[in-house]
């Protein structure tokens, strides 16, 4: 099935993907979203919907009531999604907070709290018309003042990525209670991808203003405008969210309650899902090998959809300031030696695609991605690799080895450890004797991103909705920032790459922008300061009775307002 069919829920919540975004299209989607749906199929006139319905043997009107139990791994540290973007927070906070926009499966914006929007031709003014009659869970109305406050005082100041997302925003004007006007220094095409409930939640000004945002009492008892109200958080056990009867999308949500459970052990999570104690498990909460096995189950669905705005890439990063990895030929040799297919099949059990460069093939649709770069997955790759190492001045010595090194393993679980063990074996075939090092998260972060005390490390970075947010940080010379994780830790730089990235960030014309990024990809792939091994595909496993389980490129990081359980 195509994306288009996937997104169409049985009640058509998220609507037709793919046409150019516009004020009108936005408004039409909004009409659909508010539940005038009997008509909407007619308006949209999409034959595909009926195909979908026929295939799924669907389903009739959504059934109200019941509890959705999901497992979230690990337990979130806080619920303050406005100042902490730790993965698991994103899985729960959007049940409570809404954002200005949502996104369709092709990453195009669709309405949420903003029912429509217009951009000026120079891209420096963006005007949002807000939904009317929206109230926070404490009964106070949501207005443009909340938007202004959320962007300027919260996200721009205390959100980890906010300062990047909104770097060009000078002010948010509020001509009336339901209009918010973003005024920008330069065009910022990526900003429009960063307005989801997950990335940029709209928080209540009246509860936050003038308080210490990190220790605000509502940080862990969130009050938002979303479809579910926060009820309680029993640490180590669960969070409970109850239906918001006054939700602004009338008639929604369908579930009475959403419960997020925390189970530390992967095997136990699998058992809980198999036994039906848990109906939804995202972000590889179940090991890939179990996902693969359960994909044949008659009661469960396994999907890799819903992570399109994450687009994570598995990487091996070199310390380019340290011998011999300052030598491009050495880096390329190792890039040739890694068998991407073996890694995908045997370590991630098929849940991944070979990566060709820094931008994920998820961006193929927007034209940002190109695979017209130096390719390392050629048939005679081991031969080339050995030749490159000889040329670089590291011939095999008497015992068959060329040099010794330490390979750091990113401390994110079993797969990574096996990946490290595999890389060690591959390096051995090249005559490189590698010792593995596996430290805990804070130690590793310090080593790689503060002390730069490493040779080569595995790592994975999400590329998010736009290269400015997720890609630029690893390649830009100004992103060499000791002490800050997930930036340019290889310390490789090139004036040309800087120039391309800076131009692309403010380029309003999509076509020109794509060309800039294509050139960027060619240069860095050849430099090979990073080996892009594979595009990681996360899995979501959910109960087959659950409807509208994955309706957005943000997958679990959305509100679940349209989800319901078939009897």
């Amino acid at each position, binding site marked *: 099935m195509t994306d288009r069919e996937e997104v169409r829920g049985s009640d058509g919540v998220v609507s037709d993907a793919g046409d150019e975004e516009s004020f009108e299209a936005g408004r039409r989607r909004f009409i659909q979203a508010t539940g005038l749906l009997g008509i909407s199929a007619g308006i949209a006139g999409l034959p595909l919907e009926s195909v979908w319905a026929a295939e799924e043997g669907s389903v009739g009107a959504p059934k109200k009531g019941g509890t959705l139990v999901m497992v979230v791994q690990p337990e979130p540290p806080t619920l303050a999604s406005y100042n902490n973007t730790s993965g698991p927070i994103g899985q729960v906070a959007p049940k409570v907070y809404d954002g200005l926009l949502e996104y369709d499966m092709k990453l195009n914006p669709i309405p949420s709290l903003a029912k429509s929007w217009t951009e000026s031709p120079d891209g420096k003014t963006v005007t949002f018309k807000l939904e009317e009659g929206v109230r926070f869970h404490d009964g106070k109305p949501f207005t443009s003042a909340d938007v202004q406050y959320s962007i300027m005082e919260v996200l721009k100041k205390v959100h980890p990525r906010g300062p990047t997302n909104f770097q060009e925003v000078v002010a948010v004007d509020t001509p009336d209670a339901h209009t918010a006007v973003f005024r920008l220094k330069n065009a910022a095409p990526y900003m429009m991808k960063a307005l989801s409930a997950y990335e940029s939640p709209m928080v209540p000004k009246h509860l936050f203003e003038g308080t210490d945002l990190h220790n605000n009492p509502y940080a862990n008892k969130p009050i938002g405008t979303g479809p579910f109200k926060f009820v309680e958080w029993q640490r180590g056990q669960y969070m409970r969210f109850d239906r918001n009867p006054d939700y602004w999308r009338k008639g929604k949500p369908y579930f009475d309650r959403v419960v997020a459970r925390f189970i530390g052990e*992967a*095997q136990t999570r699998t058992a809980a899902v198999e036994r039906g104690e848990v109906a939804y498990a995202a972000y590889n909460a179940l*090991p890939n*090998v*179990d996902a693969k*096995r359960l994909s044949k189950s008659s009661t469960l669905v396994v999907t890799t959809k819903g992570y399109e705005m994450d687009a994570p890439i598995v990487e091996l990063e070199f310390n380019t300031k340290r011998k011999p990895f300052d030598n491009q030929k050495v880096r390329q040799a190792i890039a040739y030696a890694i068998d991407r297919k073996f890694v995908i099949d*045997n*370590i991630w059990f098929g849940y991944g695609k070979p990566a060709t460069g820094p931008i994920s093939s998820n961006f193929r649709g927007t034209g940002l991605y190109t695979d017209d770069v130096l390719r390392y997955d050629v048939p005679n790759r081991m031969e080339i690799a050995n030749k490159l190492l000889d040329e670089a001045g590291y011939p095999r010595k008497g015992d068959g080895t060329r040099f010794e090194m330490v390979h750091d*393993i990113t*401390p994110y*679980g*079993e797969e990574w*450890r*096996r990946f*490290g*063990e*595999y890389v*060690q*074996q591959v390096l051995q075939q090249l005559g490189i004797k590698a*010792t*593995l*090092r*596996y*430290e*805990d998260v804070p*130690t590793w972060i310090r080593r790689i991103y503060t002390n730069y005390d490493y040779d080569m490390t595995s790592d994975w970075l999400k590329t998010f909705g736009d290269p400015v947010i997720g890609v630029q940080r690893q390649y830009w010379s100004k992103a060499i920032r000791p002490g800050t994780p997930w930036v340019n830790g290889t310390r490789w730089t090139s004036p040309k790459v800087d120039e391309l990235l800076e131009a692309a960030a403010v380029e309003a014309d999509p076509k020109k922008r794509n060309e800039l990024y294509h050139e960027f990809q060619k240069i860095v792939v050849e430099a090979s300061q990073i080996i892009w091994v594979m595009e990681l595909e996360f899995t979501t496993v959910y109960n087959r009775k659950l409807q509208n389980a994955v309706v957005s490129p943000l997958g679990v990081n959305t509100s679940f307002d349209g989800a319901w359980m078939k009897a």
Partner: protein
Amino acid sequence: MKAFWNRFSRSRSAVVGLAFFALVVIVALAGPRFFPGGPFQLVAKPFLAPGDGYLFGTDMLGRDVTAGLVYGARTSLVIGLTSTAIAILIGALVGGIAGYYGRWVDEALMRWTEIFQTIPFFIFAILLVAVLAPSVKSVIFAIAVVSWPPMSRLVRGEFMAMRSREFVEACIGMGMSDARVIFVHILPNCLSPVIVTGSLMVATAILTESALSFLGLSDPNLMSWGFMVGAGREFLQRAPWLCAIPGAAILLTVLAINLIGEGLSDALNPRLRQL
């Protein structure tokens, strides 16, 4: 010695335990010769069942489980024996000095021991391994640090009892140096409870190592049984032997050591409490 062996071999289970333990030692010493590529070498297709070309099958990456077992035996024994040796050393030193000198020395050292007994030992071990970064050295160190206190209490008790015996008093009266009295006269007389308790500490150390491995705190360059079980648990359904075989190795070895311990206990001192 012969008398000791006679008493020891009276317990059939102790002899069986000893035989199995000897087998493990032989495998650990000689086994790696048969697997020159090491335990991490990719030798065949992943998930080959036991007997399918490889005695115990292959794991998720296509590594020979038998090679893992053999190298794992080495790791488990090294960790078990070394950490116990260190723990006995610390424990005997602290307990011996406390028991011999008594009074404020005893008071101070026992306070120190009490502190270590008051800290939840496994969490403390996790803390130490995490701080020092997982490696075989840090695991040995952590296990030694958390397991010496009972030993020191045991040795202290023995020393206190010995200290008041006539022959010791006589030695001191003759002007013998403290070190000589301690090492030549007292220590040899309290070896038997130390050996019995020490043998059980080896078993506990192997279990502790496996639990640390289960939580991901093990040396990534060394194959160990605990690591094999931990890594294999994802594949309980797909390949149960990955978890079961090294699990059985741990179980049988720990059992063997316990049986030896009981046999020793009976042989060395029939009245000794069997802890």
